[in-house]
């Protein structure tokens, strides 16, 4: 990397999505989305079911490749046009810097909590067993589950599973964390323990993009809110503006349905 490039990396956005579009056949799921996320910024993505939130989030680490447009992580283009062999190596490298947490946790059921967390660091960062165990312990303390280190995923509650999934992602020491409805699959009484961990992460200045149906959480934790509908960003702004004084009728009607009983 040249000096100018590394200087630019310091000043430029952590994530820069340019004109992201995605089609499934003739169906346009994303229609030209732009988003810049600064280092340490926390962005919420809200919107009705089917509006393209997951597709957009999954385009950022190329789980769902875009039809056109660009995704940049600092000075690296995530969806760089390369031959498939070169791209496989490129994306595996890039994904190490992008943590992702799924609605259904996706813990590896055949591995213990410890092995879930240490598998990728050991294979990809060539950590020794001791180093990897240290890392697992550190991340499990962070999510309050150090006493579960030798449990199997099947022995954990949903909230605990999601906290382990967060610890697993953090163990790769990513630059960004993506959350796709991390609490939607949980029983209501287990939501708060996951939100607590995400709040802590926010306080540690992790850069995060959070797709959520929880308006209260978005309002409390996030610096900026994107409202998506029909594959477009209809409106974006600070939580105060989006939740209290949105300018678009579509945003207002969505929020009327989702803020019932709040504020």
């Amino acid at each position, binding site marked *: 990397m040249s000096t100018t490039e590394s200087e630019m990396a310091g000043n430029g956005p952590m994530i820069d999505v340019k004109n992201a579009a995605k089609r499934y056949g003739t169906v346009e799921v994303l229609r030209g989305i732009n988003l810049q996320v600064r280092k340490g910024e926390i962005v919420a993505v809200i919107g009705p079911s089917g509006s393209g939130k997951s597709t957009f989030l999954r385009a950022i680490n190329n*789980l769902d490749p875009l039809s056109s447009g660009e995704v940049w992580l600092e000075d690296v283009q995530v969806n760089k046009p390369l031959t498939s062999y070169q791209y496989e190596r490129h994306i595996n490298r890039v994904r190490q810097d992008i943590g992702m947490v799924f609605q259904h946790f996706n813990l590896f059921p055949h591995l213990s909590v410890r092995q879930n967390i240490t598998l*990728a660091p050991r294979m990809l960062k060539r950590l020794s067993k001791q180093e990897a165990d240290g890392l697992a312990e550190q991340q499990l303390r962070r999510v309050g589950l150090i006493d579960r280190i030798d449990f199997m995923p099947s022995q954990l509650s949903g909230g605990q599973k999601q906290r382990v999934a967060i610890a697993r992602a953090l163990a790769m020491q990513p630059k960004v964390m993506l959350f796709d409805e991390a609490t939607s699959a949980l029983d209501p009484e287990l939501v708060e323990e996951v939100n607590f961990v995400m709040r802590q992460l926010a306080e540690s200045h992790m850069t995060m993009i959070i797709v959520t149906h929880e308006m209260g959480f978005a309002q409390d934790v996030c610096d900026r809110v994107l409202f998506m509908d029909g594959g477009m960003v209809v409106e974006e702004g600070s939580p105060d503006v989006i939740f209290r004084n949105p300018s678009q009728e579509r945003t207002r009607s969505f929020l009327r349905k989702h803020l019932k009983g709040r504020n």
Partner: protein
Amino acid sequence: MGLDFGVVPGYLGALSVGAGWTVVITVLAGAFSIVAGVLFAVGGLYGHPLIRYPVKAFVWLFRGTPLLLQLFLIYFGLVEIGIDLNAFVAGVIGLGLHFAAYNADIIQAGIVAVDRGQTEAGRTLGLSRYQTVSRIVVPQAVRDVVPALGNNMIALLKDSALVSVIGVAELTLSAQLAISKTFRPFEFYFAAAVFYYVINLCLEAALSRIERRMEAAR
């Protein structure tokens, strides 16, 4: 002339040695069939077309033709192209490949049934396609199909009797040798059946232990 089981005890030693070889053949061919089954399954699903189609053709061929013929082909046929295997090796390879074809089908179904989210989680962490398949998908797939693989191992044990025809001195051939000396077919085939039954019981006990351990890791 009635039945006379009194002739059997004199040959128990020979039958036991035969039974021992049956166990050895079953274990070796079984292990081979599972390893090869995993490779065929993975090659057939993810391999480059130059690997995928030959693997599929091979699996189809080995499932669609008689095991006996395959054993003849490997033991007698390969000699013509300079591959002269001894009967034991030919038997293990023949049984192993035959059951690998069946195992491959079962394991493929297991792989396809593993939740997509598992692959996504692995790839998201930065694991390569190969690392994800070998460390995350295949172990879960194999774990999920252990009961079906176990049934194949029991079938393999019973079909191992076929290698007697290429001259492997296992249990069935030991019984035949005893018969050729005593002219007591019923007694010795019956005794061999009892041996097979006992080996089968042990195999089933081992399989259910493995199944229980796999179940605990869910």
